[in-house]
C-alpha cells in the first residue's frame, strides 16, 4: 500500500494526467474549526483507523487510492489544523484543491457557524462546480448531544449546491460512502477541459520548485 502510494513520482503522474490518466491525483483539503475531527476523518480515509489525536500542527498530508469503475483516484488529503494561529497559512494548503470538505461537529453549534465562514472563504477562491465542496457533520455517533440538526446541515448544503453528509470518524459510519461520492464528483468535474488545465497547474508547483511560485499564481487561475 505504501509502495503504491509512492509509486507515482511527480513526472510519472504528470504524464498520466496528460495521457487521460488512469491514476488521477486529487487534492482534497479538510477545513473546519479545531476539535471537529478533521484528523480523525483523514485517518479513517487513509487507514480506516480511529485514534484520538492531539491537535494537528500545521497540516498533515495523507494519501489514499480509491478505485472507481474506470479509473483509480489517488486522494492527497491535506488535513489542516483548525486552530486560529494557522488560519493565515491554510490558503497555502487549500489552493488548487479539487475537493474541499468543510467539517463541523454536530454537537457544537459554534463549529457550524465557523463552517459557514469557511464556505464563504472558499467561495472567494473557487468557481462553483469546478471544485467539489462538501459539508460534513462529524461525530454522528454522539447524536444524543446533537446541537445542529440534520435538516439545518442539509438546508445549508442545498442552498449552496454542496455535497452533504453526516459521518462518524469514530464508528466509521458513512466514511467510505463520502469518499466514493467525492471521487465520482471530482472525476465528473475534471472530465471537462478546464479541469485538466487546473491539474497541470498543480503539478507545476512541484516541477519548478526552484523558482518561487507566484503566491497568487494558482489562485488567480483557479479562482474567480
Amino acid at each position, binding site marked *: 500500500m505504501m509502495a503504491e502510494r509512492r509509486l507515482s513520482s511527480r513526472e510519472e503522474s504528470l504524464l498520466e494526467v496528460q495521457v487521460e490518466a488512469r491514476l488521477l491525483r486529487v487534492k482534497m483539503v479538510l477545513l473546519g474549526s479545531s476539535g471537529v475531527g478533521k484528523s480523525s476523518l483523514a485517518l479513517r480515509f487513509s487507514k480506516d483507523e480511529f485514534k484520538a489525536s492531539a491537535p494537528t*500542527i*500545521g*497540516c498533515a*498530508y*495523507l494519501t489514499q487510492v480509491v478505485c472507481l469503475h474506470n479509473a483509480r483516484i489517488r486522494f492527497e488529503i491535506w*488535513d489542516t489544523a483548525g486552530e486560529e494561529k494557522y488560519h493565515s497559512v491554510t490558503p497555502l494548503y487549500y489552493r488548487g484543491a479539487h475537493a474541499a470538505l468543510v467539517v463541523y461537529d454536530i454537537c457544537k453549534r459554534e463549529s457550524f457557524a465557523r463552517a459557514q465562514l469557511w464556505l464563504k472563504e472558499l467561495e472567494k477562491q473557487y468557481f462553483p462546480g469546478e471544485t467539489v465542496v462538501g459539508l460534513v457533520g462529524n461525530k454522528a455517533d454522539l447524536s444524543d448531544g446533537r446541537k445542529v440538526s440534520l435538516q439545518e446541515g442539509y438546508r445549508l448544503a442545498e442552498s449552496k449546491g454542496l455535497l452533504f453528509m453526516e459521518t462518524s470518524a469514530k464508528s466509521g459510519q458513512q466514511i467510505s460512502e463520502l469518499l466514493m461520492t467525492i471521487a465520482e464528483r471530482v472525476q465528473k468535474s475534471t472530465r471537462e477541459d478546464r479541469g485538466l488545465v487546473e491539474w497541470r497547474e498543480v503539478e507545476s508547483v512541484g516541477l519548478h520548485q526552484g523558482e518561487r511560485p507566484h503566491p497568487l499564481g494558482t489562485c488567480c487561475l483557479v479562482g474567480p
Partner: protein
Amino acid sequence: MEEVQQDREQPEVMRCTEPRSHCSPIETDSLEAAATVSLHGSSPEVQDCGTEGPFPCKSDGIKSSSSTNGPSEPELQGPGGEGPSERASNTNEVERASDLSEVERASNLSEVENASKPSEEERLSNLSEEERVSNLSEEEMVSNLSEEERVSIPSEEERVSIPSEEERVSIPSKVETVSNPSDVERASNLSEEERLSNEVSAGEINGQSQPQGSAKEEEDQPENVSDSASTDNTLEDSSEFMVTVLARATLEDQGEGPPSGLSEASTPAQGPAPSNQDEDVTAESWRRHRKHVFVLSEAGKPIYSRYGNEEALSSTMGVMMALVSFVQSGDNAIRSIYSDEHTVVFMQQGPLVLVSVSCSRQSEQQLRGELIYVYNQIVSMLTQASINRIFERKKNYDLRRLLAGSEKILDGLLNLVDSDPSFLLSAVHCLPLASSLRDSLSQILQKAITPNLVFSILIAKNQLLTIVQEKTVIEDARLEPADLHLLLNLIGASSAFQAGEIWTPICLPLFNPDCYFYAYISYLDPPECTVCLLLLSTDKEAFYAVAECKRKIDEGMRTQNALRSIAKAQSYSASQVGVSDLRHFMYKPFDVPDNHRQLTQFTSPEMEAPYSSEEEKTRLLDLYRYMHSRIHSNSRPLKLIYHVAERETLLAWVTSKFELYTCFSPLVTKASAINAITKLLRWIKKEEDHLFIRSPPKYSTTPNPSKSSRGGTTDNGFLTLL
C-alpha cells in the same frame, strides 16, 4: 517531603549559608528576612560597580539579617549573617573568576569573626592558584587534586568538604591567567546590566509590594518545603537594591485574603479540557505544585497557566501585572521575589510577561532560563514579529486565541524541562551510535536534498541521531541546542505526526525569531514511530520537493537496513564505564575552537537503580541542579564542588574543556572519587566517536543557493491575516 529530605542532606556548611531554612516560622523576629524583593541587582558585584557607596548599603543588609537570624541560628558561624558567613563557609570551595576586588574580599572576610578557615592571605593567594590549576590538562589536574588530597587534613565534622583552600596552598603558585574568559565576560556583562538599572527607593517598594507580594507568596506556600532561595537569597540580602518584605507579618495580618479573592474569580472548569486545565485553583493541591508558570500580556490578560484554567487565575495574574507595572513606573524592572519556600521570578519579553513560582530548589538563573524556553516555544509558533505586531495594534489582544491548542505543547515543554537535563545544560543529547552507522545515516541525508532545504535531522527515541546542514546557512548561523529542544518537544507533543506527513510553519527563535521555516516531519518506521525525520526548508511551497527527499531517504535506509541498526541502538549504563561507585554522570564537552560551529552536546548514561523511580530521578536531577547553580552562580562561580549528600556523593567540575557532573555511592572517598573521574574521562575519550556527533556534515543544496538563510526566510505574506 522530598524537599525536606534534601534539606537534611544539606551539609553543615551549606546550612550556614541558608540560615532561613532553619528559622522556624514561629520565630517572629526574623520577619524582615522572610522575603525579599530583588530588583536589578542580584549579586554583590553590583556593589563594586555601583555608583553609590557599596559598603554602607551592604553592611545594612547584613545587619538586618544578622539581627534577625542570629538568635535563632545557633549553627551560624558568626553574627555576621549571610553575607560573610557564606564567604566563610565557602572557603573550602574552589572559586572561579571573581571580580570582587581583593580589598573588598579582605574586608568581607574580616567581618567574619568565627571564620575558622584560612586566613585572608591564603585566600587571596589561592585565587591565582585556581587559575593555574584550570590551565592544566585534565589528567594533570586530577592527579594534582589527588596529590592535594593526600596532604589535606579533612575538615572535622563537616560533611561537605570540597578540596579545600589549605590543600591547594601546597601547589606552587604560577602566573595568574584568565582561564575562563567567558565567565569574566559574563560577570562583567552582568555588572553592566546592574549598573543600568536605576535604584528604587527601598521604602517605596516595600510599602507597595509588601501586601501583594507576600500575600501571593503565602497563598501558594506548601508546608514542608525548604528554602528555595538558598545562596541567591543571601546575595539579595547584601545587595543594595534589596528590599525587605515583611512576609510573615502580612501573613498574619491578611490571613486568608488572597485565597478568598481567588475563589471569587474561579469558575468551574470548562468542558473536556485537559486535566491540567480542570484543576481547582483554590484547592490546596494546586498551591502545592512544585513549579507554576504563568504567561500574561502586558495588559494583564492571562495567556497561559501550567496548572488550572488561566481564566480562573485572572485576579492572581492581575496582581502579578500590578507588581510588574508598579516597579516599572519607577523606571525599574522587578526580577524576583523570595520567600521562605518560594522563588518568584519575573521576566518581561516584549509584550509578554512570564512568571515562574517555584518551590523547587532551583536558582533564579535556572528558572529564568526555563521561562526563556517557554517564551521561545510561543515564538516558535507565532514568531516574535507577529506577537509584537499584534500587541502594537491592540494592547488588550487575547493571545489565547492564537495559542489555542498549543497548551499541550507548553505543558509538554515544562514537563521536559523538569525531567530532561538537556535543558539545564543547554546541550543536545544524542543517541550513542557506532560512528560508521552515524556516518552512513548522514550520507543518506546528504544525498536527499532539494533547493532551500536547510537542515535534515534524524531523531530516534527523542534523541538526536544525526543532523545535516546546508553549508551557506551554517556559515551564517548555527542551529542552537535550544532551538532543537523546541523542535523535539513539538514532535513529542503531537501524536498527529504519526498519521502522515506534516508540513508546518515553525520559527526557530534563536536562529531568527521573526521568520518561519517550513518543517516537514514524518516517521520512517510506521507504525512503531520511533525514528523521526525532520526536514526544514525556507520555501513554503516546497512540500512536494521535500516529501520527495523523504522517499529517497526511505529508500536509502531500506537498502542499508539502517532502521534495524537504529532500533538496536540504545543508551548505555553507567556500569559500562567500569568504575565502581559511579552511579551516574553528565558530561558536556565545550566546543574547541577548530570546530566551534558544532552543536553543543552532552552525554549521560541511563538513570538506573537506585534512580529508576520517578521520585528518585527527580531527586537526582535536583541535586544536579543544585550543583549546577553553584557552579554557575553569577556572584560566586565555582569550578569544583564535592558535595556529600545523604544518599549519594556528588562531584561537579567545570574546566575550559568540559563540564562534568558525577554521582557516586555515598561511601565513596574523595580520593577514590577523583580517581574514578580520571577513569571516566579516559573512558569518554575512548568512546567519543560513539557518544557524540563529531562533525555534523554539511551540504550545498544548489550551486547557487537562494541568497541568504537568515534574511531569505522572511515571509511577509504569511502573517498578514493576523
